[in-house]
């Protein structure tokens, strides 16, 4: 029997899943490699597990939303990601969708039931 805590955690993960992609795309308007991207997201208040982050980066790149290149930095080869032209377009549309949804949900939550 799942506890209230289990149910909350499950729902919290579901709620965050879609918004993480938006956060990653938004953060990659500036170039990052995996580790600094995760740190930047964490500093902004969006914790993301690397087990989820790296496959997501691969998927977004295969969808044409990100570009990447290997470069040496701090004596190590690192893969740098940034938003592609198509990614910028998709990010703009997703941002609009996010704001509309956010406003609607805020109205629902703050309005009279």
């Amino acid at each position: 029997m799942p506890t209230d805590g289990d149910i909350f955690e499950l729902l919290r993960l579901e709620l965050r899943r879609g918004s993480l992609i938006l956060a990653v795309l938004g953060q990659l308007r500036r170039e990052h490699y995996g580790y600094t991207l995760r740190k930047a997201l964490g500093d902004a208040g969006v914790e993301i597990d690397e087990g989820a982050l790296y496959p997501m980066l691969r998927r977004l790149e295969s969808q044409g939303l990100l570009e990447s290149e290997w470069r040496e930095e701090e004596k190590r080869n690192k893969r740098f990601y940034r938003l592609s032209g198509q990614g910028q377009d998709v990010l703009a549309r997703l941002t609009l969708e996010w704001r509309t949804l956010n406003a609607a949900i805020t109205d629902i939550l703050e309005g009279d039931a």
Partner: protein
Amino acid sequence: MDDLIRRYVAAVGRQLPAKQAADIQAELMDELASRVEEREAQLGRPLTRADVEALLVEFGNPLLVAGRYRKTQHLIGPEVFPFWWATLKVVFLIALVAYAGTVAVNLALDRPAEELKQVVPPVAIVVVYLFGLITLVFAAFERFGKTTWLLDWKPARLPPARGKRRSRFDLGLDAVMNLIFLAWWFGLIHFRDLIPAPQQQAVWVEMAPVWAAWRWPIAVYSAWQIAADVVGVVRPDRVRLYTGLVIGHCLFGIAILSQILAAGHWLAVGGSQIPAATLPKLQAGFDIGMRAGIVLTMIGLAVRAGLEGWRGYRAAQADRLAVAA
């Protein structure tokens, strides 16, 4: 310490597609090296082997980490799952009936347990085989994206909301039973194993010649039932057609039975150990039983036709009222 990280990254790489493995491994190696540096900065000392082990455990099982890079994350997704589950239930139910029937027949024949095991496979094997086969078929639909036909449906073909309806399983089972009957009726299958030959019995009962004259009408009667069952399963929305078929089937059955009833003699009884004086009485007893059975069947068919007609009339009235409203 580096050895542990290299072993970990290699373990992940072994689970990845060959084309991507080197690239992903290089990226993981950098991520882990960055983590080690971060942890060392926090602790103010180099990491011990135990620290690295803890860090890798935290990072995740190599199989799980590699699995997240796979394009396919599930065997059967949420869209296909309900169809897979419904099919599994129906197939298991049919298999259960078939299994129970086979076991019952073999037990009735008093076959030894060893012989029974040769005829009937263990239930666990049947269950696993069916589960595997159905899952493979649906996983193939999921994998190759051939799911549109599953999701394609027409609201107009849904059965009416009101009124009792026979379940699809019930209709399907009825059709299968009639197919078995037809196969037996035309001699394609025999039940000789179940019923020993007449000469081997103290008392034997055979069908009288009257039935031969009704060979084709009875076959049509059975095929008619199959047609009605198929309409009920495939087009549950065609209530009038189904009702018409059932009523027609019942009336046709009454017509056949009324003619057969006139024969007055339906079963031939005999037996080597029956005294000659007893045989006519036994024959008369069987004929009385058959007459009662035929009359009761005719009454049953008439009641069913009447009920179906009444339900059809009520449904049509409800439709008219709904349209008027």
